[in-house]
């Protein structure tokens, strides 16, 4: 049996309609699915051309400039990161991880007057399985989402891990 598990229409392709919780939730689930299915180039395509992606190293970290981050990528670095993930020589992904994510508690924290841009807060749990070991991550995500005629795009994404300042193994698969 072959089942096409991809959504018939990518979530959030409503033509620049105002963003509500339901639309944002569907978008976040779509993003999580792309990551779980290792469709990293499609994930990258969700970001705006000047987007950044940030996983702070400290709780309530104010800035990625004067404090280290587990990941801080501007658009240029994010492209490099995603290209590396596709490399057959990425030894830290040989064997590849399998991940499964659950997104919940989605709320809109701030919204522009026209409703077409917002900051969405969500909770996530991520199980990563690789080479006989299973690791559980959890935390809070913030997405700045913007609705455009080509669909919803991520202007920035911040991932606050509950154990961000802990001793960690190398982090390779994006959150």
């Amino acid at each position, binding site marked *: 049996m072959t089942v096409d598990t991809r959504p018939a229409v990518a979530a959030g392709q409503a033509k620049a309609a105002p963003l509500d919780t339901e639309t944002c939730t569907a978008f976040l689930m779509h993003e999580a699915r792309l990551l779980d299915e290792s469709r990293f180039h499609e994930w990258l395509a969700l970001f705006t051309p000047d987007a950044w992606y940030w996983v702070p190293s400290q709780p309530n970290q104010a800035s990625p400039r004067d*404090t280290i981050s*587990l990941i801080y990528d501007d658009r240029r670095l994010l492209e490099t990161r995603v290209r590396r993930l596709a*490399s057959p*020589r990425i*030894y830290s992904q040989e064997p590849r991880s399998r991940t499964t994510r659950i997104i919940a508690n989605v709320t809109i924290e701030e919204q522009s007057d026209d409703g077409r841009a917002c900051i969405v807060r969500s909770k996530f749990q991520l199980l990563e399985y690789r080479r006989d070991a299973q690791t559980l991550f959890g935390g809070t995500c913030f997405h700045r989402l913007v609705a455009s005629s080509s669909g919803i795009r991520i202007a920035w994404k911040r991932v606050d891990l509950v154990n961000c*300042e802990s*001793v960690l193994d*190398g982090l390779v698969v994006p959150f």
Partner: protein
Amino acid sequence: MPVRNDVYSLVEPGRVHRSLYTDPDIFDLELERIFGNAWIYVGHESQIKNPGDFIATRIGTKPLLLARDTGGQIRLVHNQCAHRGVMVIASDSGHTDEYRCCYHGWTYELDGRIKAAPLLHGYPPHFDPKASDAGMKRVPRVASYRGFVFGSLAADGPSLTDFLGYMTTSFDDMVDRAPDGELQVAGGTFKHRYRGNWKLYLENLCDAAHPLFVHESSIVAAKQQADDVYTDGSGEIAIRQMRQNGAPYSFWEANVGIWCYPNGHSFLGDYHDDSKLVAALNDPMFREYMSAMEAKKGKEATRKILEVRRWNTNIYPNVSFMSGFQQLRVVHPLTVNETVVHTYNFRLGGAPEQMFHNMIAFANTVNGTGSLVLTDDLEVYNRIAFGLSSAGPEWIEIGRGFASDQPDEHGGRRGKNSTSEVYVRNMFDAWLGYMANDHEGRTLTGEPSVRGLEARR
């Protein structure tokens, strides 16, 4: 089967026995004889700048507290209450005028002496709270070199400057780059773990032959990266570095060198020059830095400081740093097969803040827990542990360049070029010195007590 104390049978010219990376008994002996004797880096003075400041640190697997006491003295004590053994301080850092145990309220001066304890009556004669050795146990020796603090669990042994020898010049290189002469630990700490032996970390840091293979995924990804997409500047140095990692062997053999000194220390040199450290020499930020340097130190001194081009410096057994990138890593052995590395960054006092931001961005992308480069190194350490769990060859080969290494004018030895594994052999010279109970671990210079590889050639 190697005998526990027969360390000589485990180290031969150009090769070492696999059990050095896998045998828990050898690991225990390393903690006792290497981490129990050598000067071990425990922190930087800027982390305990004011009287009352303290940080948690460790030597080997032993948790310690490093503090500046009310008189301004640097103190290092074991983090254990003298009463019933409780960890006295549970936070990583802080400011206090005393250490106070949560269990029965015993309090201590920051040098470990008992300050007060409730119900101090009825104790048997062996317990004297006024005795000079009562209280939290002190680490016998603590010393600093230009702000870098080391402790030794051995009461006797060479001084810190004797232990460091010529490697003091790498610390000088780091400090002298600060226009006002001050370094400050800043910007948080990476803490990453790998499932392999502690020695693997330093053995990789001056390995010029590995990047082309281990880092192929990031080299290719960075080389293919378009430069005309949006950037806020944070990827600039890191992308240069990833591309640089792809330099062919001819570059490493013609341009880069490896130098080693007694007690297991080494550095990889003549690698980057400052035109690659920053966006370009005509970068306004770098010009601002140069004028701050020249204003404080003069043109000639500035030129001399900035022409030093050292990459990683390894101070055996537990610390490595990049003087030009203001980054320092401390190796914490946990078990024979588990290691944690803490990575710190430094702000150069008097330098433009943007320079510090660039180093943070560099660390994130090259040396961080989620970076594009270090993650493949961690994988290699893990794979070495997997490989050594097999029944493959008994000996680990560290012989590259063995026949072509040369003496160095400062009492050390250098590879013909950077691809020599001389610095690994040099670490095992020191290893053998410590493990054979020679506290100084000096084998490279040909002292009478030499029992190391080079001496037996």
